[in-house]
């Protein structure tokens, strides 16, 4: 620290330069992100209809009160939590397992490592359309495959049955998001010194023991960050998957919160009510976001 203070390098008005350099992005982030975010708070306290601006009025907390009694919204909360929790659990367990396999030595390892990034890079709308096609009741590949393997006797309308629709949405989501976990965990696994493992082998530790007492502690932090990112991501960015594959149905069984906000805002044109819902979701998200920021800040700053 002291050497930094007496460094000629940090003395020539870094303050002024720093502020100048940061200014454009401050304006962008404040202007286009924070301002709308605060604007959204105001909207959430109003009855706001784009088509009938003369009827816009201040409601106070009435939108929020109504939310606590809105059975569709409450359903969406449950659906979202279920979707998110199961997706992330699967993404972490599968991701770590796949990373452990891919950390072994085998022929074609380089190729597989390269290819695993494909689902991650795929536009999410393409992922959604692709699964709609695969899950198609009459001509879908899943039905064809399962019946040719003899597992399924008659073609099944996967997304027309509430339970299956949710499972399929989770499957499509897990397929796309797991590679992210694999990539990060694999990078962490490669950072583990090999002599540490060899020492454990020499000491006679079995595979399970080695994983539990050497590997797991060394990748625990990255798994934690991964899980938080996946939770936040699944809560924020799953609109198109549900919108395209199930439209929230059948019987609202996949009606996640972003879908509900979309219906209320852009279909029912209740901008204020939609904003209240979005605001509540954003505030709830602060919990995992705070954990993430603390964890990632520790990694990148310290």
């Amino acid at each position, binding site marked *: 620290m002291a050497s930094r203070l007496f460094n000629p*390098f940090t003395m020539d008005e870094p303050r002024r*330069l720093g502020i100048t*350099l940061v200014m454009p992005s401050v304006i962008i982030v404040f202007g286009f992100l924070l301002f709308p975010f605060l604007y959204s708070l105001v909207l959430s306290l109003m009855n706001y209809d784009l088509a009938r601006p003369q009827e816009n009025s201040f409601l106070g907390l009435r939108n929020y009160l109504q939310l606590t009694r809105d059975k569709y919204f409450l359903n969406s909360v449950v659906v979202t939590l279920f979707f998110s929790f199961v997706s992330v659990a699967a993404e972490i367990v599968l991701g770590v397992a796949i990373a452990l396999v891919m950390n072994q030595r085998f022929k*074609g390892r380089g190729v597989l490592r390269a290819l695993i990034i494909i689902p*991650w890079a795929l536009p999410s*709308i393409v992922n959604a359309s692709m699964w709609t096609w695969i899950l*198609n009741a009459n001509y879908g590949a899943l039905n064809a495959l399962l019946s040719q393997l003899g597992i399924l006797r008659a073609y099944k309308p996967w997304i027309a049955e509430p339970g299956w629709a949710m499972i399929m949405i989770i499957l499509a989501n897990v397929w796309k998001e797991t590679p992210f976990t694999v990539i990060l965990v694999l990078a962490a696994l490669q950072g583990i010194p090999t002599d540490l493992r060899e020492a454990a082998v020499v000491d006679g530790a079995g595979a399970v023991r080695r994983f539990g007492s050497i590997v797991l502690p060394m990748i625990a932090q990255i798994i934690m960050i991964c899980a938080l990112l996946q939770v936040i991501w699944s809560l924020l960015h799953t609109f198109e998957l549900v919108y395209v594959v199930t439209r929230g149905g059948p019987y609202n069984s996949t009606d996640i919160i972003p879908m509900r*906000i979309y219906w209320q805002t852009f279909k029912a044109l209740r901008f204020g009510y939609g904003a209240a819902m979005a605001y509540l979701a954003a505030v709830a998200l602060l919990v995992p976001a705070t954990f993430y920021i603390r964890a990632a800040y520790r990694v*990148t700053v310290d």
Partner: protein
Amino acid sequence: MGSTLRRVSRRTLLYAAVILIAIGVLAPYAWLVISSISTKIDLLGVPLKWLPAHPTLENYRTLFLGTDSALSQGMSFFSRSMLNSLIVTFSSMGVCMLFGVVTAYAVARLRFPGRRFYLILLMGSYMMPPIAIVIPGYIILKSVGLMDTQVGLALVDVTFILPLVVWIMRGFFLSIPLELEEAARIDGSSRLGALLRIILPLSAPGLVSAAVFCFIASWNEYLYAFLYTSMRARTLPVLIGEFTTKVGTDYLKMAAAGVVASAPPVLLALIFQRFLIRGLTEGAVKG
């Protein structure tokens, strides 16, 4: 004897797992590609055959060459959307890289009031749910007349990609030894001169990584494009969404469009994989 047997069965198990992973990762996308070069007759047969009898590029041809209406200005809807996607992606990428790099330099190397606060704010903005921004954003864009324009959408894209660039570049800048920069400054170079001549060339992998992230994030973006654009400025993802959500889905066209739309991000990710992975780990962001 026993240990050889164990080693052999271990290898078998490993390869079985590897094959399972490979199929799991590739099969869905492979089916999209196969569908895109098939004809209706190939795909609607029961039992389904997994490879087309007569592979064809017809689905791609109709995407690019069909002129759907006068509204698309002589191009097919598809070509028009692709052009929109390219314009929005490259302009938001340019803005993000320029402002992102100087901001990252400032927060990595300079001490100025509010630096820490700004860092946390940036990270927080990355956590901001798009769905909470979408509604006021809609009203704002409408009131300034930027609805259904490439400029409007590019601006919106910048807001969520810029923090990403700052995080990635900051990580790379921090990993460059301070002494290199100091040496240049003792030799009479200005701070920005040192940034241009010393730091940027050294962080070329970071620049590549950030640029590819920008491209993929903007090219793949759906929600904002879906709500803020329609006939004039709609991007490829929006058009693809329309293929599947409107009545009378044409799965062949959708498959071909999906392959075309996914080709740039998939190829970029495959080519620049190493850079991307470093970016993911340096920035601790999701992309």
